[in-house]
């Protein structure tokens, strides 16, 4: 596959750039608490969250279901505003969603009455108000090609498999060229094989952009978190979840899915994360 060779080359040339650039803070979460008022009273989803994410970093938020990891990510996207504290993204306090932060939703969130092409075009058209129609079409075609969906571009979402829908959602998020990408359990509904190739595709897109985009992924998949991330943020169980630990993943990039499984460092991190996520259960047993 020549596309693989191409991405490998880009990986090497991008390495230095990545190191230099990684000093700047892209996202800064300061003392954030999110609570909702419910009929039963105040419900605190997350609290005391402080986290700095550098430009070009890939971060995973990991924790058990309902621990508030999606809520935390939504404070970055602006879909949820913190009850107290603040989130600063690209130097600005987050007050709502914006095109500098692309979102890939948990359930793809494609508009079912639009073809693959139109789903991406409508987002591009909305964000790039000053570009000409030709430019917008060129952008859409480019990203559809990058996720290998050119032959499916006129299909409706209902005619696509889960993996294809996810690729459309990722293409749509990349197409508006955000500096920050937020992925909410993006591969949770996919089978293991599709998931694996989606990981590679995601990293490929990240590499093609000189590893310049900051990516935050919400997941409950330990292997996925390690393979993709520079840092894994482990959350405590909710309600009122806090950050339990931030684990650095010091594994060389480009990472090879097959080889990495035998890397002693990978095995050590894997064990550490497993321990962090499951210690509570073992004590109770």
């Amino acid at each position, binding site marked *: 596959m020549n596309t693989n060779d191409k991405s490998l080359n880009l990986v090497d040339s991008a390495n230095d750039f990545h190191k230099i650039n990684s000093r700047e803070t892209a996202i800064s979460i300061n003392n954030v608490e999110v609570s909702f008022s419910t009929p039963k009273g105040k419900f605190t989803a997350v609290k005391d969250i402080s986290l700095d994410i550098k430009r070009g970093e890939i971060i995973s938020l990991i924790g058990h279901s309902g621990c508030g990891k999606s809520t935390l990510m939504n404070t970055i996207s602006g879909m949820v505003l913190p009850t107290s504290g603040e989130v600063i993204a690209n130097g600005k306090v987050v007050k709502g969603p*914006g095109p500098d932060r692309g979102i890939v*939703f948990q359930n793809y*969130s494609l508009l079912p009455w639009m073809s693959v092409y139109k789903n991406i075009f*409508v987002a591009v058209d*909305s964000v790039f108000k000053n570009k000409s129609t030709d430019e917008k079409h060129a952008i859409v075609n480019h990203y559809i090609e990058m996720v290998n969906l050119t032959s499916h571009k006129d299909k409706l979402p209902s005619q696509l498999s889960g993996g294809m829908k996810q690729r459309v959602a990722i293409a749509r998020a990349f197409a508006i060229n955000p500096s920050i990408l937020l992925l909410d359990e993006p591969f949770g509904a996919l089978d293991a094989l599709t998931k694996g190739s989606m990981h590679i595709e995601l990293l490929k897109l990240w590499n093609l952009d000189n590893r310049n985009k900051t990516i935050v992924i919400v997941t409950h998949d330990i292997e996925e978190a390690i393979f993709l991330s520079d840092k894994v943020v482990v959350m405590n169980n909710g309600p009122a979840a806090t950050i339990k630990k931030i684990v650095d993943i010091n594994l060389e990039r480009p990472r090879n899915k097959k080889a990495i499984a035998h890397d002693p460092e990978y095995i050590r991190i894997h064990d550490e994360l497993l321990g962090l996520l499951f210690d509570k259960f073992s004590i109770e047993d």
Partner: protein
Amino acid sequence: MNSFSLKNSISNALYFIGSMLVLIGLWQLVTILTKNEIPGPVATWQVFMELMSEPFYDRGPNDKGIGNQLVSSLIRVFSGFGAGSIVAIPLGLLMGSSKTGMKLLNPIVQILRPVSPLAWFPLGLLAFKAAEGATIFIIMITSLWPTLINTAFGVASIPDDHKNVGKAFGFSTWKYITKIMLPYSIPHIITGLRLSIGVAWMVIVAGEMLSGGVGIGFFVWDSWNALSLERILVAILIIGTVGLLLDKGFNALQNAFSYNQK
């Protein structure tokens, strides 16, 4: 058309014919039981053929062909239905998209909806000083509620997933309305229109009995005064068939706009 769907439509046609035969049989039975007080299918058929031989004759204001009567009823229904829809759809969109709008308007709708449209007839007379205007007015009132309620419900049930797309990619209000709100709610709106036209077609008969003039409802009343039960039965069959065709038409529209089945 493949052989399965061909087979399917042949069997549907056969069932339809069977169903009509059952209706005619029961009808004949009633005729026999009432000792021809209620005209039978054969006598009605003769009157039907007679009426259809010259459907569009016009011999003065009180003597017009059945075709004329039907056409003027349809024009009235579609005028009232059109006016009602023009009010109901935007109001429904507003009601569905704003919680305040819903809370403010819903009690009004709930109080007015169960009122028989005929109760509005005198108000219509007062407002339009003419029976024609009043009839169209009650059809408008009739067509209002199902469309309004279905449109509002459709818009209010837009899933968060779809709304989030608009938020995440910074859709303008116009883009949100045209790319998310309307495409999602059009099937609901058409359901409302389909219910509205059905009720409007039922109400027109009663409305025209009140208003007089020309129309299929007036035709029924006029036939009663002339003691021609055959003509009434012909009218009933025509009203039923036209109602069925209207419903089928809107059903086809509904299928054309439901994106999930494409």
